[in-house]
């Protein structure tokens, strides 16, 4: 007798297979609502099916990993396959991001939407080329103007969150936590001064 593989055929599994198909053709993360609409299923059932898929597609178990990123769900390559992937594809968005670009990106990510004059004021350097470069990479985009006829404002894109592996903007750590206490900086400066004076 010929042996056959049977797929599990309960409704959640069926929905999970549909979501798998949708995620595999999507060029960007898909929100639960988008998946629910395309699969013609309720959001709650979609989340259950996504949970099932997350169990199947995880690091160490599959070459494909399901991740929650940029406000949606997306499939990506497992980290263990990174070297092979790097030999196959180039990553122009991430490559050669300069310090000026990163600072500008940080300003837009944390304080956006912001205009070029605001970025220049904070960095103390004209921001035109950095902003243009980030727009070209697709990491930031225009987001209205400073009042009628004012300067164009910029905000980060979902691609920014995808590149930096953020589920959403709320995952950015607080600047207060990152920058630490101003007092600490003062103490370090005084310590350096003391060493020099010694």
């Amino acid at each position, binding site marked *: 007798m010929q042996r056959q593989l049977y797929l599990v055929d309960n409704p959640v599994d069926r929905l999970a297979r549909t979501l798998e198909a949708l995620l595999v053709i*999507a*060029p*960007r993360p898909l929100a639960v609502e988008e998946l629910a609409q395309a699969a013609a299923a309720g959001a709650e059932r979609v989340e259950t099916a996504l949970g099932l898929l997350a169990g199947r597609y995880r690091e160490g178990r599959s070459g494909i990993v399901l991740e929650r990123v940029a406000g949606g769900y*997306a*499939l*990506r*390559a497992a*980290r263990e*396959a*990174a070297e092979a*992937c*790097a030999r196959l*594809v180039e*990553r122009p*968005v*991430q490559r050669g*991001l*300069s*310090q*000026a670009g*990163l*600072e500008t*990106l*940080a*300003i837009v*990510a*944390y*304080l956006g939407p912001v205009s070029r*004059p605001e970025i*220049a*004021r*904070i*960095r*103390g*350097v*004209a921001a035109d080329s950095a902003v243009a470069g980030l727009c070209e990479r697709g990491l930031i985009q225009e987001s209205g103007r400073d009042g009628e006829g004012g300067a164009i404002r910029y905000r980060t894109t979902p*691609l920014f969150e*995808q*590149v*930096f*592996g953020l589920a959403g903007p709320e995952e*950015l*750590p607080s*600047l*207060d936590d*990152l*920058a*630490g206490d*101003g007092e600490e*900086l003062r103490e370090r400066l005084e310590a350096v001064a003391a060493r020099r004076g010694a």
Partner: protein
Amino acid sequence: MGQALAVRDLDLDLDAFEGPFDLLLTLILKEELGLPEVDVAEIVIAFVERLERREGAFTPAQLEVCGEFLVLVAALLELKARELFHEEGELDVEELDPDEAALELAERLAEYRRVKAGALWLEERLTAESDRFFRLGPAPAAPPPVRRLAPQDPARLAAALRVLAAEPPAPSLSHMPLRYPPVTQFLERFRAALRRRRRFVFDEEVDGLSRIEQAVAFLALLELRKAGEIKLGQPAPFEPISVWKAA
């Protein structure tokens, strides 16, 4: 004596400029390089690094060089601050008293420091995520929405199609025929008139005809004149035109 310090020879490798400090100053003063493009902090770092590399004791001459550098950088910063503030029209530095200016500067430095920390976090995150590969591409267009039609009655659809498929009425050409006699008719008429008489008056000949017929008759007259069959005479503009046979 250690390695000599010279502010003007200080080699710089900035985003906007590469070369000696002296040349940078010249370009800025000639307005060939925009000061907002120049990262003054990097100039300071380059100078401090040069100081670090210096060997031996600090001489009064070197202290003088440091003083010169401080004066130049302070001037650069002041110029730059003026340019940046002036562009935005937000704040006039000259209106600030020294304490306010110091406070403003301190606040801006604190803000920049926070942003710098954010940039550092992003840089580290980018490195940590360098082994994440995912599909990237333009989003395909969504399929057009399906238009749901109400239930249709085939007989009514056929009737509607029949109306559309019916032969349209032939277009009317009633406006096409000429409403005036051809020029040739007047050619013959004038030739016949000149066979009977030696000369005639055009106005009398066309009297009673419609305006358009008179115009066609005049064209026929010109045609005969062109062919050299007749001669025309008119004592004055708008006077009757006499027509007689050419010899």
